[in-house]
């Protein structure tokens, strides 16, 4: 039994002179929901197409269930794929769409009919078997696409930005439903998205990608609270970048000072910097709070915007010495705090998940 459902060993893909994917190493565990997250052009779709077999690798090897598939054609890889536009066959009704992968596998009619009915029940489309794709709503088409990919019991389910065509409310409902189905079936799933909220809420693990490289693979909490580098820190969630100074290092941690506050941060990203060097301190908006009068302040600024978000209040500050704006996210509606145009002293929450990186040159 292979230990991984999918394994990539140094897979590289070039388009002409452009390296779309640079030596990707990745292990996807059995039953895991792994998301490839990154901005457009980062190589996440290339990586998915390499696993599916729509693209050939220029270097490296791909394994599915321990079997080498680098040179195996798509139709022999035993994958299920949901396309961004669903790609439902317009000349077939829902039942024939779902049965397509069973027909190619030579499953007999009676068993196929039963499995199609089960798959449609799984995605709550019982009774829709005779409809044409064009007669269905976007959400229903998505369910058919999912049923069609799942009915063949693939070794791995590949999803290429499946929610991008849905409106916001439907997207949320479909995300929950997909996650439920995925957990019930325990199917290994690789999901491509550029939406970091989607990635954090659905995944067991997230692989954050940029410019053809995998920057970090970790649980949503790990990539959010302990980003491996400044790209991951900036791409996953909002972050405040504050000027700070390295005080010293001790084992795995380092001390940095910003304003009148000291922070303990992981030392690894700061390797090679001498005490006293300028660094950038990364703090999430929810880890900042108004400082009590007379207490030590991280920074002081002027409130330039108060944005009400229902469950929270966002304050935008302009502070001397800080490029861009400082963002605070306060729970509730924070009455009387940070009126527009007022001065506000800011401190960090106790034991924040602070990170520091060398400044960009």
């Amino acid at each position: 039994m292979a230990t991984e459902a999918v394994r990539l060993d140094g897979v590289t893909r070039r388009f002409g002179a452009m390296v779309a994917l640079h030596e990707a190493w990745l292990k996807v565990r059995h039953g895991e929901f792994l998301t490839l997250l990154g901005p457009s052009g980062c190589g996440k779709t290339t990586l998915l197409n390499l696993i599916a077999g729509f693209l050939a690798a220029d270097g490296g090897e791909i394994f599915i269930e321990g079997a080498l598939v680098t040179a195996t054609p798509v139709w022999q890889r035993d994958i299920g794929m949901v396309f961004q536009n669903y790609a439902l066959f317009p000349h077939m009704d829902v039942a024939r769409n779902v049965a397509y992968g069973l027909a190619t596998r030579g499953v007999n009619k009676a068993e196929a009919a039963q499995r199609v009915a089960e798959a449609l029940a799984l995605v709550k489309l019982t009774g829709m078997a005779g409809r044409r794709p064009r007669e269905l709503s976007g959400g229903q088409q998505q369910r058919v696409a999912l049923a069609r990919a799942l009915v063949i019991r693939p070794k791995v389910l590949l999803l290429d930005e499946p929610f991008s065509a849905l409106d916001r409310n439907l997207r949320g409902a479909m995300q929950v439903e997909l996650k439920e189905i995925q957990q019930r079936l325990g199917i290994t799933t690789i999901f491509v998205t550029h939406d970091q909220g989607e990635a954090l809420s659905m995944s067991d693990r997230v692989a954050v990608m940029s410019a053809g490289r995998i920057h970090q693979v970790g649980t949503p909490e790990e990539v959010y609270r302990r980003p491996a580098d400044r790209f991951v820190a900036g791409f996953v969630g909002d972050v405040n970048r504050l000027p700070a100074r390295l005080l010293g290092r001790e084992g795995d941690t380092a001390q940095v000072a910003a304003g009148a506050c000291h922070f303990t941060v992981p030392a690894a990203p700061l390797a090679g910097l001498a005490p006293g060097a300028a660094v950038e301190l990364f703090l999430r908006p929810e880890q900042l709070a108004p400082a009590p009068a007379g207490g030590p302040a991280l920074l002081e600024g002027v409130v330039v915007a108060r944005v009400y978000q229902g469950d929270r209040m966002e304050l935008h500050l302009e502070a001397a010495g800080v490029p861009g704006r400082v963002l605070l996210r306060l729970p509730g509606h924070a009455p009387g705090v940070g009126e527009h145009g007022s001065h506000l002293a800011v401190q960090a929450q106790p034991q924040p998940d602070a990170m520091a990186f060398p400044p960009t040159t």
Partner: protein
Amino acid sequence: MRGRPFLGWFVAPGVLCALGLAAAMAAVLQYAVRAHIPGSLGVGGFTLENFSGMLRPLYASVFLQTVQLCALTALFSLLAGYPLAHALVHARSAAWKSAVLVIAVTPLFLGEVVRTYSWLTVLGNSGFINGALLWLGLIDSPVQLMFTRFGVVLALVHVTLPVMVIMLAAALSHINADYLRAAMSLGAGPVRGFLTVTLPLSMPGILAGTSTAFAWTFSAFATPQMIGGGRVNMVSNLVYQLGFASFNFPFAASLSVVGLALAAAVLALLRLGTARLERLA
């Protein structure tokens, strides 16, 4: 017309052309129902004898032959054109695409006479095909290719191919590539994917191309005239013979009218089929 001061000027040439065509059609129509006076270019009174005369086996067989030749031409241009159109749309290399485009479209740019004469040098008893077969020792005496239905259909396919390829390529290029990718991800190899996805989705293009090829061939004149050499006749050749050899203008006109009606009827039928198909898809 307010706000479009030049509309009248722009439309005028088109209207004039349409009026000219309508006048010509009216002339043909009225000739079709007039009696023929042998030995004279003038015509007699109203009659429907021209139409009943067409039922004679000699003329009826020409109509049948025309429909058969059109059907064969449409069929073989489809069979030859589909792979070309597919290559045109899906070929990876630009060189391949250009080669296919040149092969598919050049017949359009050759004059009808030049194109037909070039077939004489290929199909004649001392032409390229017979010469090659004789040289290889596969045959002892030349095979008759000129003045046969085979030769006529071959030459007609040649001139119909560009239209077919262009129409099929338009249809194929509108099929989203993700359909075939989805089929492949579900376990379909290239052959099954083509038969179950690409081919059915290109059916509207196939019907459009075939009906256009059919109508296009129906009016063929020079090709059957020269390659058929009087032994393979289509309606247009019959019209020519009656009009310019026998000077029987009324009968020639009535043949033209029936030919036009027949072509229109076949096209209407195919169109009905397309509409039904599109409702299904």
